[in-house]
């Protein structure tokens, strides 16, 4: 079932952010959402995640679905290592060895036992991505997941995301047109 954003309106004080917003994100596909700063991308993400309510309108297709997300901020448990952070959302369904293998695929080796507070911004971002992709989910919402990654690393991580999200419903928020073309997803603009 597709995710439908139907007749959404949202005000922040006097500022009208959405006035009758309608979008349909395709099921089992990569959906890329672009828009200028302040266009409401993050607000829409928060609504889809159930963290913000619209003033009116509704979102269909998410009820009962398990959602995993990469947030704008990494939202990691600072004093825990990468494996423990990922295990927190995966539970017992995935072994530590599997998590370590996945972290290796995005270039995080030999750091698995270090607290993430000692990680660089790019490393933390990759941990957040692996966490979202390994969580048992039906829908993935990725809010600027490649932010802070250098070009070579970005290519590697995009390949990893494409590989791990095949057949899944993904909504990926980005500023970068090149990312959209690499991901070859459906493009939506706010």
């Amino acid at each position, binding site marked *: 079932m597709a995710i439908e954003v139907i007749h959404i309106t949202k005000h922040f004080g006097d500022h009208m952010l959405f006035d009758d917003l309608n979008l349909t994100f395709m099921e089992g596909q990569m959906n890329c959402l672009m828009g200028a700063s302040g266009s409401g991308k993050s607000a829409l993400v928060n609504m889809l995640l159930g*963290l913000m309510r619209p003033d009116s309108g509704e979102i269909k297709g998410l009820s009962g679905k398990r959602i*995993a*997300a990469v*947030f704008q901020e990494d*939202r990691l*448990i600072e004093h825990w290592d990468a494996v423990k952070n990922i295990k*927190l*959302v995966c*539970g017992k369904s995935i072994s530590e060895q599997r998590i370590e293998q996945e972290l290796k695929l995005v270039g995080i080796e030999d750091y698995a036992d270090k607290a993430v507070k000692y990680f660089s911004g790019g490393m933390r971002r990759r941990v957040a991505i692996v966490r979202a992709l390994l969580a048992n989910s039906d829908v993935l919402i990725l809010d600027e997941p490649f932010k802070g990654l250098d070009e070579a690393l970005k290519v590697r991580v995009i390949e990893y995301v494409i590989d791990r999200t095949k057949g899944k419903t993904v909504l990926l928020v980005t500023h970068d047109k090149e990312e959209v073309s690499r991901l070859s997803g459906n493009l939506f603009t706010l």
Partner: protein
Amino acid sequence: MKGAKAWRVYGRKYGLKVFVVCFWILIWELVSRGVGHELLLASPFAVIKTLFVLAQSIDFWQTILFSSLRIILGFILALVLGTLLAVLGYRFLLVEELVSPIIKIIKAMPVASFIILALVWIKSKNLSVLISFMMLLPMIYSNVMQGLNTADEKLLQMAQVFRVGLFGKLFAIYIPSVKPFLMTAMMVGLGFCWKAGIAAEVIGLPTGSIGAKLYEAKLYLMTKELLAWTIVIVMISIVFEKLVMFLMRPERRS
């Protein structure tokens, strides 16, 4: 080389501490000589000698055990109930609304009023349990509540999205947030428990308690004994504080 440097650092640190202790003992000795009357202010050496004499009797250790057990019991009860009430208050607004005024009243009430009131309700033997409990309860409740309220909202949202279970949220988000607040309450509260607990014993005079010994010493103008028991109270309070700090060390939990 590293070892030698470490020894120098330790030497300087502890050497300074020894110097400070010696300095104040010297001041005490000089004041005592100036006063010139053991009944008014006994000399430190006379007090330490009295302490050694006291320590040789079984009664001395039984007295310490009597008071310590009761004060620590009050401390543990306040720790458990204060934390539980704070968690329930955080979760249910009604509990917070019901408990908050009581906590405020307990905070504002003078210890002496409590002690006298409590003497009407319970046996003097258990008075220090209730008083140390009452002293610590508001601190634990308020600090745990503050810790829960400052838990990272963004991490809680992350846990909500990923449907992290209660234990996961507890260990990842709530405990790290509450821990510094709880530690502070325990450190400060332990001292309060001792002071209030002994004050309760001095008023309630339960047989075989440190408070009763203090009162007895005061009654018969046994200044050396009075000061010796005061040193004992300070020492036990420090030992328990160090013990709590040791038990709460992060490496012990991992």
